[in-house]
């Protein structure tokens, strides 16, 4: 066994631990997340998904593949869906990032898409769900009244292993309805 306690003398304290993380070139980065500016010093290679999840502890953004296929990590960057596992934190410098927490962070503050998923049983394990919520929220801004076919198409870039998508498609249509009912500007 190779015990290397001499190489890593720092055991206690998050700050001390953070110092020890740095094996890569460091950058100070300021990202606007859910309306608030967050500044952290991160290695150049730190993924945006890890930055959000572990540095900011916004764990609603999930990681299902880390190679850009499943869409579980989808966040909105300046309002448009982007895969947080395919971006470095430093690339988000000065951009506006919205995570699922930013769309509604409690039962009382759920947005129309979150509400629709709850009504239509649009989720089972919930792991893929935040990626769908962000994607659909952005889509409905542009297309407030989608057809069923369009609803199916917009969710066809995200993987869900639980639901078979049927209730997700239903949720898209219901979310559009809720949004229209609320009279929000299209």
């Amino acid at each position, binding site marked *: 066994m190779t015990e290397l306690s001499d*190489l890593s003398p720092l055991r206690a304290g998050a700050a001390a631990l953070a110092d020890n993380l740095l094996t*890569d070139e460091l950058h100070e980065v300021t990202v606007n997340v859910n309306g608030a500016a967050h500044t952290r010093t991160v290695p150049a290679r730190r993924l945006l998904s890890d930055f959000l999840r572990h540095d900011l502890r916004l764990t609603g953004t999930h990681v299902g593949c880390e190679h850009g296929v499943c869409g579980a990590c989808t966040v909105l960057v300046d309002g448009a869906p982007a895969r947080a596992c395919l971006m470095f934190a430093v690339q988000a410098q000065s951009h506006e990032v919205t*995570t699922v927490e930013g769309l509604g962070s409690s*039962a009382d503050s*759920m947005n129309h898409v*979150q509400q629709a998923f709850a009504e239509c049983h649009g989720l089972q394990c*919930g792991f893929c*769900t935040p990626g769908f919520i962000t994607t659909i929220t952005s889509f409905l801004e542009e297309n407030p009244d989608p057809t069923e076919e369009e609803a*199916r198409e917009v969710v066809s870039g995200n993987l869900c292993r639980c*639901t078979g998508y049927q209730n997700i498609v239903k949720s898209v249509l219901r979310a559009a309805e809720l949004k229209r009912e609320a009279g929000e500007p299209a």
Partner: protein
Amino acid sequence: MTTRQFGQPVQRREDPRLLTGGGRYLDDLGHTAYEAAFVRSPHAHARIVDIDTDDAIDVDGVIAIYTHEDLPGIIGEPLPLLIPHPALTQARTGYALAKDEVNHVGEAVVMVVATNRYVAEDAVERIRVSYERLPAVVGIEAARDGSQTVHDEYDDNVSAHLLQEVGDVEAALAAAPHTLTLDLEIERSACQPLEGKGVLAQWNSDDESLRIYSSTQTSTGVRAAVAAKLGLPLAKVECIAPDVGGGFGVKIMHPWPEEVLVPWAARNLDHDVKWTEDRREHFISSSHERGQLQQVTVGFDDEGRLLALDVKFWHDNGAYTPYGIIVPIITATQLLGPYKPGTYRVEFWSLFTNTVLVTPYRGAGRPQGCFAMERTMDAIARYLEIDRAEVRARNFILPEEMPYDHGLMFQDGRPLKYDSGDFPASLAKLKELVGWDDFADYRAAAEAEGRKVGLGIGCYVEGTGVGPYEGGHIHVETDGRVNVATGLTTQGQGHQTALAQIVADELGVPFENVHVTTGDTRRMAYAVGTFASRAAVMSGNAVALAARVVKAKALRIAADALEVSPDDLEIENGVISVKGAPGNSIDIGTVAVMSNPLRYAFDEAAKKATQFAGTFDPDKPPVGDDEEPGLEGQDFYSPTQATFANGMHAAIVETDPQTAEITILRYCVIHDCGNMINPLIVEGQIHGGVAQGVGGALYERMVYDDSGQLLNASFMDFLMPYASEVPHVEADHLETPSPLNPLGIKGAGEAGTIPVSAVIASAIEDAEGFPITAMPISPSELWTLRRAHA
């Protein structure tokens, strides 16, 4: 009267939390933990010659590096054989870290612990393992041939050989007017939950206790296995399944090497340690399923009635057999579906290959069995030129023949005895739903447009809710909050909702007050796990029984207080009142106060239970002789046998005359899982199951090359269906209650998946006019078949 919750499409309790980023999955925990990464074998079969970790030691942030040599005592011994069986004569399990030899690509060889995963992976890159490569056994044919073996100590690759026979098949075949033989094949797929596996271990050196969080389908199983491996008293180990991002079977297998190593490292290093599986690791080191070669010989009469069914199949069990031979046993027994076989002989060989191990994946051997049986039904219909639904109907077990004993032993070691079901009624519903009798017109209309369409059908029976048992514990707090705990785990099935519905009804309390915890050994230490569509049946009935215990106690206490007999009381909406005199009542929270005589008042409610409050009869002891303090109780549900759900699916597919592209135009499901607790959740299970079935029928396969490399180990190359590939499911239900349990329910979790490959094969065969014998099928394979049959 409060509305009964059971049977209502109640919205899920867990959803607001999961929808707003409030879920806590494994990697959402332990932000300050050290993280582990593994050096995994790049070879399918090799001897380990040397492991050089020198360069890795220099990586800043590395805490420890472990190889098999570092594993003390039983941690270094083989992982447990979870389900032994007398027929499993050549079992083999792996080691937590490979010892001397690797037997599949992806096997863990070295563990690195570092301050974070980035650093751990840097170190993994710098570790050099030298191997002496050995010939790899890949695929069932190579395994069966046996000229190369996976394990040196055995002369062939057969881990188990099992034969079961009911009646004299040889004689019945010889006497049968007609016989047919089919050779069939099903390829490998895998569960692929969106969240991979993961473990977080927290060692408390002050009291020498261990807390494990694992993305598992069995927290009690992991707890017991880790305690045994680490030599810890069970009382010092707790295991919690946090929110789990899907399971589908792969997470019932335990302990995974990482589930042993991470807790061990946490104790060694006296620091929290976490491992989160990445997708490539999941592909190459978490189990697969499905791969089988089958040969069916069937004897039947002029009407298409079965006289003899003789099945042989060869099952790929991968490199190790920790989960025993559960999957092939299920294939062998559940193959029979809703039919009477006349006489039946089934024989299988479970075979080692140098590939990832094989353990249950949603359906667990049933999709293969269903494929064999349903292909056979279609072959008989075709041979005799009888309608395919009609051939099936002629072979059905009829409702008046229930319970029906097949004379075989099921996967739980108990008789394969169907408890209930109405197959003719299910078939009638299905034919109606899909428009079976009008399909000729549908086809003619399509043909007139130059399109090719086909109609397919598949029927199955699923043994659900196998034992040994599950428990329910219920505790009512003084404010009326009802805490329910059951030990099995949740991966998206909505147990917090469904079990709360049951308890709300049984106890007579508002649904909103009922809070369900699953998969936490601190709250319920006795449990088995979530698999085999058993959660609703087992824990549903267990919490119902527990609620009855608590209700009886509440009525006893209230009867004393109200000076009436318990028989004169009823509970509704959390209020216990005298029947016919609703004013004479007491709420259940107050009963909870009275149930626990106190010396100290910690709040207003508690005051009433203190010794000078004057609320107690001074002539009686504060806690009666046969009573315990607190309004709580528990009970266990342990059935004598499984309960059998069933279903029938039909699909219409279109095959492109030029490109051979296969499109599912309609997909219809008739499903009978007995009484439904929550139809919304049941339908969700069916939709998801069908989607996985469609993946297995048309897209998903594990592509190994001859050297045992998995060529498509990413979501980019392993084609899991998106919304664009999954058809809209039209579902209808039959509710034939199970006579075996108090709630009359049967399992629903795997139902959607089981018959899909059979149904799609049936439909493609109908469209094309030649036999489909291997699944999955791609457009290029269909195109090649067309050329062969041209």
